[in-house]
């Protein structure tokens, strides 16, 4: 609870961006790395339901779930981020997101190892994403880096995680189901 209001305060390089990024983020963990998603993008968090696998789906699409009658594709962020997929634990949750792709609203779920808390990041607690030179080409989905007392949280832009193609695939997958 103390983390609800992060104590950290550090001068950011780009207060514009960072201040834009300030707000509440749903933090979760992927392989011991903290990530955050804009809370507004989050619709709900559900515990692990049975994921129905889709045959011949790309690897990052874990499958689909039936959420109160709605079929929602679930993305395995680990795979997406290039980490190896793991088996689900009891901490594993699916964060249902609502994302806008190419003007369309897409409801998707992301499979995360653990959901943490809602973090409210001040602008000063957010750093711009690290500059990796050429490698940063694929990392524009990182909005920024949030700092808490103990940890660093990568703030993600869902919309940028998936490419257009992947998004359409996702939609296709959902539609098929």
């Amino acid at each position, binding site marked *: *609870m103390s983390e*609800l209001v992060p104590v950290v305060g550090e001068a950011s390089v780009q207060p514009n961006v960072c201040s834009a990024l300030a707000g*509440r983020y*749903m933090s979760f963990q992927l392989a011991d790395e903290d990530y955050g998603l804009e*809370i*507004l993008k*989050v*619709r*709900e*968090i*559900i*515990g692990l339901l049975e994921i129905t696998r889709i045959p011949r789906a790309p690897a990052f699409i874990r499958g689909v779930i039936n959420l109160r009658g709605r079929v929602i594709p679930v993305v395995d962020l680990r795979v997406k981020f290039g980490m190896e997929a793991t088996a689900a634990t*009891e*901490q594993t*949750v699916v964060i249902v997101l609502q994302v806008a792709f190419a003007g369309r609203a897409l409801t998707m779920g992301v499979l995360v190892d653990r*959901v943490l*808390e*809602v973090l409210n990041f001040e602008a000063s607690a957010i750093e711009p994403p690290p500059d990796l030179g050429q490698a940063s080409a694929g990392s524009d989905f990182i909005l920024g880096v949030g700092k808490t007392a103990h940890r660093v949280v990568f703030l993600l832009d869902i919309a940028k995680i998936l490419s257009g193609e992947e998004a359409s695939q996702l939609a296709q997958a959902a539609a098929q189901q």
Partner: protein
Amino acid sequence: MFHGTRSKLLAAFTLMALLVAVVGVAGIVGLSHALLYAVTGCALATAVVLALIVSRSVTRPIAFLTAESRRLREAVLAGKLDERGDATHAGAEFAPVIEGLNETMDAFAKPIAVTAEYVARISKGDIPPKITDSYEGDFNRIKEALNRCIDSLAGLMDEMNRMSGEHERGDIDALVDLQKFEGVYRTMAQGVNDMVGAHIAVKKKAMGVFAEFGKGNFDATLEPLPGKKRFINDTIDQVRKNLKDLIAELNRMSGEHDAGDIDATIDTHRFHGAYRAMAEGVNKMVGGHIAVKKKAMACVAEFGRGNFKAPLEKFPGKKAFINETIEQVRDSLKALITDADGLVQAAVSGKLSTRADASKHQGDFRKIVDGVNKTLDAVMAPINEAAQVLEQFSQRDLRARVAGQYQGDHARIKESVNATGMALHDALAQVAQAVDQVSSASTQIAASSQAVASGASEQAASLAETTSSIESVSAMTKQTADSAQQANELAKAARTAATDGSSAVEQMQGAMGKIKASAEGTSQIIKDINDIAFQTNLLALNAAVEAARAGEAGRGFAVVAEEVRSLALRAKEAATKTEELIRQSVKEAGQGEVTAKQVAGKLGEIAGGVSKVSDIIAEIASGAQAQSTGIEQVTRAVTEMDKVTQQNAASAEESSSAASELSGQAEELASMVAAFQLHSQERTNPTVAPRKAPSLPPSTASVARSAPVRPSQRAGTTVPRGVRSEDAPAASARQASTRMAHPPKADDPFPMDEAKSLVDF
């Protein structure tokens, strides 16, 4: 006493006299009248008795006598001149009368009997010998007459006997001397002479005819003789016929024999008696001659078959010439055969210069013997020359050759000997070369033998080391076995203890398990609580999300959500703490369990370890056993190796000495070859390797058992390999020999891992 009449008479008279005397005496005496009467009466009585007696004793004999004489007279008249009086009842006094009669009769009877006997004999023809008894008077006349008669008859007999005896002796002219006889005797004698003369005349005539027969004239005849003498004619005719027949038969038989039928015989049935005997005799004689001839021919036939031992029975007399002839032939042939045999024997036994003496034979036999001699000469000439050449060869002069000219097969030996000579010559030349090579080769052999020998001795030394090492290993193995046994005992005790501990621990584990179960039950509840907290958290988060979505309106909701979340967090924390506590207690229980398990496990391990230890100990024990066995095998192997080494050493010695011998032999051979005279040609002097006695290492056999040289390293390297297999000895020997030049550097006797060695065993 009173046997004889005379005595009787005497006695009687005496008695009477006595009586008279008595009476007289009595009278004289003057006896009483009564007594006198008595006496006289007695005397009278007695005298009467006596008189009776006397008269009896006188009259009886006389009566007897009379009777006897009457009897005798009648007997004589009857002609029974043998009757004689019986003098026994005549009494002593009259017996002589009878006896006298008897004697008288005898005197007559005897001559009469004699005369009768003689006359009887004469009448029977048995001229008795002249009477020799002397007689008197008329008897003598009888005797004389008889004797004269006898003489006459005997004389006639004698004469006739003489004549017949003379006739028998052959004087057929002898006659009876008529002058010796008279009267009818003379007539008789004359008659005899005449008769004999007549018979002789006839005989002479018959003999005359037989004489003619004897001269071969069977035509002589005999005048027919009268009466019964005709038989002579018949006989002569018979004889003539028989003889003529016999002669005819003989002629026929001889004719046939001449013609060739030697089985022809006289028909003996035509003849009888002596003629038959003669015919048979002729047959037999001829047959005999033929038999003799046949025997002789049979003998000759045997000669013809080569059997000179065929006997020929010795023919008697002049037929012996056959024997002589046959024997001559036999001897000649035998001599020939003997000589031939002699030559054969001599030839067979190698006396080839022996020749037979031809002068001992005659004619063609001599030719034969000569021929054989010449043959031998012809055959021997090349052989002798060849022998000479061979002798020269034997004198080592291989240049000699047979030079003579021979023909046909004789030349073969010449060629063969010459070829032999050349071959030997060439061969020896080659031998000389070969000797060289042999010499050098033998030197090499000697050197290598030496090397082998020394290697073998070193090997023997290392084997000794190995043996001692093995012995110590064996001792240690024994110790190991004992220790293993002890350890086994301890292990068993430990296992028992472990088992007890195990069961105690199990009990503890049971209690732990219960704790754990209850802890787990609690844990499960905690888990549920956790889940609830989690879900609540999610709910709170969702609520926060909704609140965020709701914006301003959701602020209160956000707070609620926040509170709920914090509650959830608290619950979670509590649950977590509880869980922590539970976990701890579980953990501790678990740890306790784990510890118990560990303990149990350890105990189990101990037990297992002990089992394993037991097993291992058993393995050690069996390993030790195997070790022992292995050591035994190794020992045996080493012994074998030792034997082999010794054998090697011996063989090396032998081969070394053999090599030196070979060297020497090569030398000898070279000198022997040099002794031969060969045609002068290029001939390399055989370089004989100097005869050196290869220096053998000291007797390897003894070294094997005594303190060896450079022991330890050898044993160390050879033992481990040696024990692996039975045929290791050979391998290790080889290795030992190869390692000779490179001794390993290890110093301790067993440069090997103990465990490894055990494993190896």
